Each structure stands twice: as structure tokens, then as C-alpha cells.
């Protein structure tokens, strides 16, 4: 960079820069062998300040409003600046590059930070295409939230360590699984504002998590998909993420087509009983359900050598089919129930070693499949 280049000088509000840096902080990586990644590049962009950060898997650009006194760019250590700014009141903050130092000041406070070489900062790739998908961000966020807890957190099978977005002829199927349970959310195409994409991609868990945190308004979110990356444009935030390579397993085949036992019950009732049973479950998180169709009775039981035993009846609206005794991991049951909307749920079982299915009685756009624990 030449000496003659303008030095950056801006004034912006504490709150704005704090919000922007919070996003950058989450994306930037903490213990990389490339220390430059702990920094963010800041750049003036017309009437805005653009903050860029990346961990080389996700890259994010946040635009925050500010008063540009002099165009330019600089580089800041994210966590240091964030610690500083978090402790300031919501006032005007001036940021200025001056003689290889970055000066950050308010009316009555001054700091100066040495500047490292910004040439080292990675270039965040751009996606050149027009928008592929436009969707209401709240619908999008809710869908991700409903499947997020089913994603496999280990990297053993990379293809299931992310969320599948499968664009079908008339719907978008969003799927996550860790082989013990599986969530499938369906968004009908009529609820999507623009679709010009009909393939599928696997979004890394961390990106999905970040999107959920970023989305806080009712605005639209725009998706651009390329071979190996996907970009999300939302408000003043542009997020680029790599896509997980590999083929998502054929999950449709494990969705049970029919069931032997069918229960309709109140979600809150079920949730509260599971929570109590969980207190007495052993270290493998097992709780047992004893379903007796003839006597129209459902018992929930848990026991542990040290903690003791628990059993309770569960109220339900309807019970039909075969008797069954089945053991579940209560955490997985709880996760599924919390993902389901509506008051009443349908719980379908097919024997004590086959996957069971949970869904809402009212809404049929979401289902949760859970594998019982072998007895």
C-alpha cells in the first residue's frame, strides 16, 4: 500500500460498532495457526464502515452506518477492540489511522493500538451471480432452528455434520441427522419468494448456527449458491460459507411409512413427564415407556441404582394399535418435542427396535424420527 493513500478516519456510534464486531468475533477463529484471522479488516464503503472477518470456512462482511471523514482501510484485533467498546457508553467513537497506529477515542478517552500488516488478511471470495433464492428470514430461521439440534456434531461422517437443503419440485426439504434421530422440515415453494435453484447442498453446522444468531428481523434473506460455497445476504450482512462436500445419505428410506402404535397427546404433558423422569434416569439417559392399549394406559419409568426409581402415568387423548415397551434417550425425545409446534403431538411407534416418529397434530411440515435404545 502506498504512502500517499488516505488514512481511514470515521466516527460512529458505540452500539453500531459493537453489534458489527459481535458478529465478526463469532466468525473469526480463535486458535488458528494464522494469527491474522483474529483480526478484522475495516474499510469505508460510501456512508458505511465495512467489517470483514473470516475463519477460512465462513467469511462475513458487516456494514455499519458511520460518518466517513476520510476514506481508507485498516485492520483491528477483534477481541481487544470489542472488550474496549463493550465497556464504553453509547456515545460517538472516532476511529482513525495515524502514523501506523490506530487511534480510538471518545470525547474524554483515548487509546492507540499498533497496526499489523493488513496485506496478510485473506480475501473473502465473492459470489458473482444474481440471487437464487429469496425467502422471509423468519421462516428460514425457524426452519433451521427446528432441525439444528439433530445435526451430528462429530466429524466422523462429514456429510451429516451439516444441514441438508434439498430443493425439490414443489418444496424445500431441510434435513439434519446424527444417526440417532433425524429432523425433516418442509417449506412449500409458495412460501418462498424466489427459487431459481433445484439441487441440494449441505450447510455446515457452524454457519447455520451463525445465521440463527444473526437473523433478528422480518426482512428477506437472499441465497446465492455456487459449486462449493453459498452466500447469504441479509440486511447489511453478507455471509459466505463453504458447502460440505459429499453425498447426503438417502434419508427418505428410514422415514417409517406406517406404524403399529399411535398416540395423540398433549405436548406440555409429555414434556413435563419426560423432564421429571430424566432426573431419575441412569447415565445412558434412558427412560422407559410402557404402553398398554387394552387398559388404555401409558406409563413412563426411569431408574438408576443410586438415584432410585420413578414412574408416572401420562395423560393422552388417543391411543391405538399394539402394546409396546420401549426405551428412549430422554435428551433426544426432549429435543424433538421442543422442535415441534402446536399443542398436541402425534407419536407413532413400530416396535421397540424400530425408529419412532414425532410430529405435530396440527402442522404437517415437520417430523422428528428417533431411534429407541436397545434393551
Amino acid at each position: 500500500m502506498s504512502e500517499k493513500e488516505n488514512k481511514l478516519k470515521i466516527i460512529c456510534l458505540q452500539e453500531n460498532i459493537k453489534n458489527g464486531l459481535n458478529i465478526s468475533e463469532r466468525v473469526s477463529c480463535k486458535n488458528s495457526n494464522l494469527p491474522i484471522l483474529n483480526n478484522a479488516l475495516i474499510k469505508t464503503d460510501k456512508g458505511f464502515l465495512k467489517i470483514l472477518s473470516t475463519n477460512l470456512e465462513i467469511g462475513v462482511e458487516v456494514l455499519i452506518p458511520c460518518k466517513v471523514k476520510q476514506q481508507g482501510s485498516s485492520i483491528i484485533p477483534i477481541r481487544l477492540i470489542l472488550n474496549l467498546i463493550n465497556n464504553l457508553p453509547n456515545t460517538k467513537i472516532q476511529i482513525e489511522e495515524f502514523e501506523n497506529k490506530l487511534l480510538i477515542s471518545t470525547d474524554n478517552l483515548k487509546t492507540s493500538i499498533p497496526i499489523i500488516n493488513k496485506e496478510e488478511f485473506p480475501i473473502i471470495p465473492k459470489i458473482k451471480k444474481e440471487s437464487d433464492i429469496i425467502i422471509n428470514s423468519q421462516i428460514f430461521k425457524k426452519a433451521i432452528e427446528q432441525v439444528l439440534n439433530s445435526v451430528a456434531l462429530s466429524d466422523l461422517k462429514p456429510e451429516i455434520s451439516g444441514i441438508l437443503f434439498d430443493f425439490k419440485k414443489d418444496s424445500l426439504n431441510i434435513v439434519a441427522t446424527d444417526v440417532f434421530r433425524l429432523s425433516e422440515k418442509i417449506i412449500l415453494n409458495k412460501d418462498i419468494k424466489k427459487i431459481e435453484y433445484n439441487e441440494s447442498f449441505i450447510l455446515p453446522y457452524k454457519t447455520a448456527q451463525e445465521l440463527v444468531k444473526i437473523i433478528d428481523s422480518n426482512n428477506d434473506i437472499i441465497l446465492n449458491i455456487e459449486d462449493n460455497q453459498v452466500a447469504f445476504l441479509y440486511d447489511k450482512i453478507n455471509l459466505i460459507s463453504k458447502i460440505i462436500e459429499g453425498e447426503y445419505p438417502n434419508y427418505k428410506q428410514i422415514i417409517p411409512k406406517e406404524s403399529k402404535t399411535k398416540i395423540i397427546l398433549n405436548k406440555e404433558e409429555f414434556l413435563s413427564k419426560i423432564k421429571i423422569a430424566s432426573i431419575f434416569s441412569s447415565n445412558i439417559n434412558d427412560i422407559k415407556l410402557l404402553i398398554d392399549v387394552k387398559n388404555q394406559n401409558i406409563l413412563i419409568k426411569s431408574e438408576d441404582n443410586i438415584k432410585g426409581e420413578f414412574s408416572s402415568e401420562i395423560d393422552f387423548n388417543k391411543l391405538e394399535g399394539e402394546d409396546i415397551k420401549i426405551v428412549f434417550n430422554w435428551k433426544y425425545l426432549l429435543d424433538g418435542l421442543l422442535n415441534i409446534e402446536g399443542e398436541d403431538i402425534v407419536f407413532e411407534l413400530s416396535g421397540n427396535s424400530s425408529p419412532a416418529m414425532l410430529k405435530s397434530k396440527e402442522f404437517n411440515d415437520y417430523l422428528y424420527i428417533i431411534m429407541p435404545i436397545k434393551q
Partner: protein
Amino acid sequence: MDNQELWQCVLSDIELSVSKANFNTWFRDTAIYTREGNAVVVSVPSSFTKEWLENKFNKFILKSLRELNSEIKEVKFIVYTNQENISQNNNLITKKKKQIFKKPENQLQLKVLNKDAENNLNLKYTFDTFVVGSSNELAHAAAKSVTKNLGTIYNPLFIYGGSGLGKTHLLQSIGNNILKQDSSKKVKYLSAEKFSSEMISAIQCGEMEKFKNKYRKIDLLIIDDIQFLSGKEKTQEEFFHTFNALYEKNKQIIISSDRPPKAIKTLEDRLRSRFEGGMIADVSYPDFETRLAILKFKVASKEIILSEDIMSYIAENFKRNIRELEGALNKVIMQMNILGDKKISLNSVKKTLSSESEMPKKIINIKQILKIVANFYDVEEKQLIQRIRRQEIVRPRQIAMFLLRNEYKASFPTIGSKMGGRDHTTVIHACEKINNELKTNNMLAEEINLIKQRLYT
């Protein structure tokens, strides 16, 4: 210079002039994808890398390439990852982690594994990857002909031999081959232990009928390690019925064990006679040539280059089973990865493997030999030494002498004195007799092999 070498030279050049962190971050998993006339296309793992190399290292890479090949005028970058490499790496990771974590029991049946849940066959085992030598010729030929005449010629096929000699490989190859010919065939591979535990849970749940039906609809039943049925009477009985049901319908049954049917203790006679009614083939210790052939095969399939003398050394020193042989080879490959191909020499290989090749070599002594021989033939140790001339004692005694001579390398007079003060000519006679008989009597050879196996494990 091919693309790979060319890129290697460029990388070595760049490595000198950028920091290690930078080099690792930006140049890992890069390669020359293709060359189109004057342009070189470099594949990179992510778009971040692409941007960075395009904007920051373009000139540098071009300069470096031009120094090696002045015809090159242009460098382009594409994002491309070699799926094969990735999946291979993943497999490695998976394997490693599986050993650490106990695999949870119940999972959704997502079909991403190599192993087919329906028949338990692992697709990596095929005849193509089975190295045939004199030690396993018969078993291999029998297995091959079974795949051509399922259920009709050798039924049951009984394969036995020590662990790590390729029984499972052979068994699974048959299954895979049959499925390849006709995917509608019902093939089931399982270990005797699994069969037994499935049966127990069927009894517990009162689903015995279901269990019976399941096994009686199979076209090819492969049971591995049948010796584990020994002592489990109820399982044996159930297996007997299953066996008969399949046998009557001319369905193929293949069984493996670590010893011949005769030598499996507490195996019911009716089962034993059935096993002996088909074809019995053994897999014995591979000879040096076979071991070398196996090594060469493995080395070729891993696409590495290993010098002849190193391979001979490994083959020479790891005799007991093929798993060990593979382990030794893997260790050498590991060392190659760490040190780089060029630094590997016979001496360094010897050093790496020394701990392994020496440790398990059990030191044998006279007492042990006598004890094991006596045990094997079910006679008392002291009877071997006493002057008893009954046939059932004389034979074991001669074998003991033979082993003392050949395995322990004791002198004839020493053996004589240890065996109850016999003359050294008696010992010489015994050794010669066994030696001669070995040439014609296969049973004897087998017995001696089994004894040796016990001696060394």
C-alpha cells in the same frame, strides 16, 4: 516432468519463501489439475484459497513454474477437491475413532457404510484382493468352485486355519461374489458368536419362530469362527437344525474355524460329522514367497514404492500371520510419511520394526515343548520320558524329539539325555522317521503345525 513432480518443485520453492503457517494454510491440498497448452490449472480446496492465490501468489507461482518449464505462460485456479482423497482420509479417521469410542448400539439405518446391514458383508473383501499361495491354494480353489456351483458340490465348505491367515477374507469374498452374480440371492455372513447372541435374544423375546424362519430362508449362510459354539449346547442344537434345513434344500453353508472339526472340543458329534461330510480345506501359514507376494500386492494397492530388500526383510521377519505382516508394512509406510520417501533404508526399517519382530517371538524351552506335546496328544508328560513302548506314547515322544531338534535346535545327545537318558541314535531315528513321514502324511504335518502354533502363541 509430470504434473505432480512439477507442482512438488513449485511447492518446495514457495515453502522457502513464505512462513510455515502461511504455507500450510494456503498450499495444503493444492495440486495441478490439468495443463492446457501454455496454461496450468491449479486445483485448490476452497474459494478462500483460490482468491488468495489468485491475488497474492499468482506471479510468484507463475515465476516458479516458468523456471521449471519456460513454456508456461499462465496460471489459473479452480476449486476442486479430490473426493477419493477425502473419503480415504475420512475412512482412516473413522477407523481410528471407532477404536476409541464404543459404538453406540442403535442407529438409524442410514446407508453410508461399506458394510451391508442385510448380509453383514464388507465389500472390501473380494477374490481379486486375495493372494493365492501354496498355503491357501486348496481353500481358495474350493471357495472359487463354490461360487460357481452354489450348494451342489462342496456343501458344507469348512475352512480352517490360524487367526489372521485370510479365512474371513475368503469367506466374505464368496458372499460378495455370489451377490455380484445375482443380487437377489439371500446371503448372510455372521460369526458364531453373533448367531448365538441373536438366538439368546430371540429366546428372551419369545421370537424363536421368527429366528428360525429368518435363517431358513437363506441361500448362502456363512458362519465365521464356529469354534465359539463349543460348549454352547442349545446354540449347537439350533444350529444343527438350521444346518439340516438348509442342507436339505441344497443351500450352501460355509463355515470357518481356527482348527479342524475333530479338534473342536465339546462339539456335538452329529455336527462334527456333518462338517466333515462336505469339503474341508485348510489355510496354513504362508511361505516366504506368498508373504512377499502379499506385501507386493499391498504396496501396489497403496500406490507407494518400497525397495525389494525392505519387503524381503518384512516378509522374512513376520511369519506368523498376515495381519502382523500388514501391521509391519503400515508402520513402515507411516515412517515413510514422516521422514519422506528418500530417507527410508533397510536399516531404519529394521530399527522401526525391531521391537515388533522380536517381542512376540516367544522363547521356548524343553519343558514347554514336552508339556504342549503331551497336552496335545492327551498323554502325561512323564510318560514321554518313561520307557513305555506303547504306540500311543511312542508317537508323541518321537514328535517331541523332532520338535526339540527342529524348533529348539538341541543336539541329539542333549535331547536323548533330557528324554529319559536315551541314546542319541534313538533320537536320530525318531527325527528321521518323522521327517520321512512328513513327506507323505498330511495329517501328521497338520498336527505338527497345530502344535507349533500352540508353542508360539
